[in-house]
């Protein structure tokens, strides 16, 4: 208990002088010990009850949650009693830590366990341990690999979003009138719920028969403007919708970067006689590179979560062409209610994301250092 607790060292100010006296220390330790025992007892009763060894118990696991809360409060109080001023400081961080452990760390570890089960939630059978069967099934699941392939496309498409967003940010940082108005308007798509956008654009604007986009396409000479019929067209349509929603985010961050850029650099380039393109390519772009890489990485992180638009517009079709990993797992669960298999797929995906992001962070560090 002692070592695992956050220890606040000397702060930048006010040394932690108020040490707790011995009796308070003992009281604090006793409190934490008591709370831990109580928590373990409640958990034990419930486990025995669920496995059927004991008849007494609770109808659901909610008391465990309450016991955890009580334990967390007792632990916080124990920190103050045993450590005085340092305990007060630890108390700032502890709520967020306990919350995160309860709702992120524990479910993720629990998910690793579920991933090894054959568990159909809608059948009465209950979970059955199946070891690596889910992973073996995944290797033969062409739809999953197809979804991963689509993610590569969606991720690469972030570069296109970035190019457009950079253009818009440059436009907004130019000397224009009504800049604030344009900024508000350009930001609006980001505010809209992707589900509403799925209907507004995917299901009505791009509708084959009456959608204005289809009418426009016919007028421009495309006889058969089916935006979701062929695999590539569907993929591009989904990507266009996602870009519509997310370009404002990239644009706003790039705009902030452009505005933070010292004006002298631009003027120096002008004095040197650089034209617009040259001053952009040799001055603005390199200076913006760190901001660009940061925003690209954040955007890719969010892109890897893409699901709602796909689920609501194409449900992955035609033939899985627009599937993202998330929308595919969502469908796997909806169709088969197999939590074990779905979780196994999700865990592999998480692993791939972690590897990818680690590589990207490594690489980006090198690039940004080269320039700056």
């Amino acid at each position, binding site marked *: 208990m002692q070592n695992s607790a956050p220890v606040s060292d000397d702060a*930048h100010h006010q040394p932690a002088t108020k040490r707790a006296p011995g009796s308070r220390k003992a009281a604090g330790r006793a409190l934490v010990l008591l709370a831990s025992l109580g928590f373990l007892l409640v958990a034990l009763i419930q486990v025995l009850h669920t496995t059927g060894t004991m008849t007494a118990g609770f109808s659901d696991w909610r008391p465990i949650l309450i016991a955890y809360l009580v334990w967390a409060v007792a632990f916080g109080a124990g920190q103050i009693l045993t450590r005085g001023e340092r305990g007060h*400081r630890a108390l*700032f961080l502890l709520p967020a830590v306990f919350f*995160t452990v309860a709702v992120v760390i524990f479910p993720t570890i629990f998910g690793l366990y579920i991933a090894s089960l054959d568990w159909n939630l809608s059948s009465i059978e209950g979970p059955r341990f199946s070891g690596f069967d889910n992973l073996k099934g995944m290797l033969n699941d062409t739809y999953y690999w197809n979804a991963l392939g689509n993610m590569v496309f969606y991720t690469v498409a972030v570069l296109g979003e970035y190019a457009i967003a950079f*253009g818009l940010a440059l436009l907004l940082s130019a000397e224009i009138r009504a800049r604030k108005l344009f900024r508000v308007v350009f930001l609006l798509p980001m505010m809209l719920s992707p589900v509403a956008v799925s*209907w507004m654009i995917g299901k009505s604007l791009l509708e084959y028969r009456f959608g204005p986009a289809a009418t426009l396409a016919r007028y421009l000479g495309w006889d058969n403007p089916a935006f979701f019929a062929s695999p590539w067209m569907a993929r591009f349509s989904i990507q266009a919708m996602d870009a519509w929603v997310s370009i404002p985010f990239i644009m706003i961050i790039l705009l902030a970067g452009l505005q*933070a850029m010292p004006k002298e650099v631009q003027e120096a380039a002008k004095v040197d006689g650089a034209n617009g393109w040259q001053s952009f390519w040799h001055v603005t772009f390199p200076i913006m590179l760190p901001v660009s890489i940061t925003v690209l990485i954040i955007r890719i*992180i969010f892109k890897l*979560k893409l699901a709602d638009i796909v689920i609501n517009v194409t449900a992955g079709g035609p033939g899985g062409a627009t599937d993202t990993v998330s929308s595919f797992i969502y469908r796997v669960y909806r169709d088969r209610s197999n939590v074990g298999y779905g979780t196994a797929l999700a865990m592999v995906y998480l692993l791939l994301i972690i590897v990818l992001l680690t590589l990207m962070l490594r690489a980006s560090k090198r690039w940004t250092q080269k320039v700056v």
Partner: protein
Amino acid sequence: MAISTVAPNPIRKRPAAPRARRMLGRALIYAALLLWTFICLFPIYWTVTTSFKSAVDVTQAHLIPWVDFQPDWKGWRSLGLSPDTLFGTSTARSEFMNRFVNSIITSVGASILALILGSLAAYGLSRFRYKFAWMRNDDILFFFMSQLILPPVVLALPFLVLYKALALLDTTFGLILLYTLTVLPIVIWIMRDQFNAIPIELDEAAFVDGLSTWGAFLRIILPLAVPGMVAAFILSLVLCWNEYFFAALLTSTDAKTLPVMVASQTGSQGINWWSMAALSTAAIAPLVVVGIFLERYIVSGLTTGAGK
């Protein structure tokens, strides 16, 4: 840069041509701005106007009210929100209002919870030095931020199982917990930046005046951090309001939020566009208002740490 030899400065020799080019450049800039304005606004315009259309106007792609077509309350009537049905009873409206209230409770609740947890942690990380096993302040911050990469799909199914055991499935409280975790990293990020911007001398002055650590935080620092809190709150509100994936998996009847309702209507309505358009308009309206009037806070929340 050896560019000056390539492009000799023409401004002094011929002033007329560059002026024409400048005019052209400005025209191009405004053309591009207007084009993108159109791209941003047309889907919204289309949705709002479609909610006032009847079947004929939809199929014939009429666009401009009173010129192309006569607006009608049709879509809004089907939601029970048109002037003539507003004061009667309507099952559609009561369902809509129920979902709307659910969305408000969930997103406001999650944002407040995230703001409390996040501000405390951010203040601690900004002012004190922690040591947790091998983890220092930077590692702890990274630990919180790293949860951003977790795709919802990883947590969704374990949560389904856990919530079933905890009897939290289809409850607003369960949803609030999940939404809090999705926005907590962002809140911590924004608030830490905010606290770092407040000089540490203020804390010290408060200690001299005899305030405790918590007293200084609550009475002196927190009131100064209000701008950051507003930005973090609004940003989390937007993210929670629009969340669909968890809500679709974890709610069924009682705690359903607005996006789930919109999504469930999409498939079933067929060509009943006017009511879908009315529903979409009602679902996005609050955020359009937020986007127009509170844009400043959203931008300041998003750009925390950028350009430094």
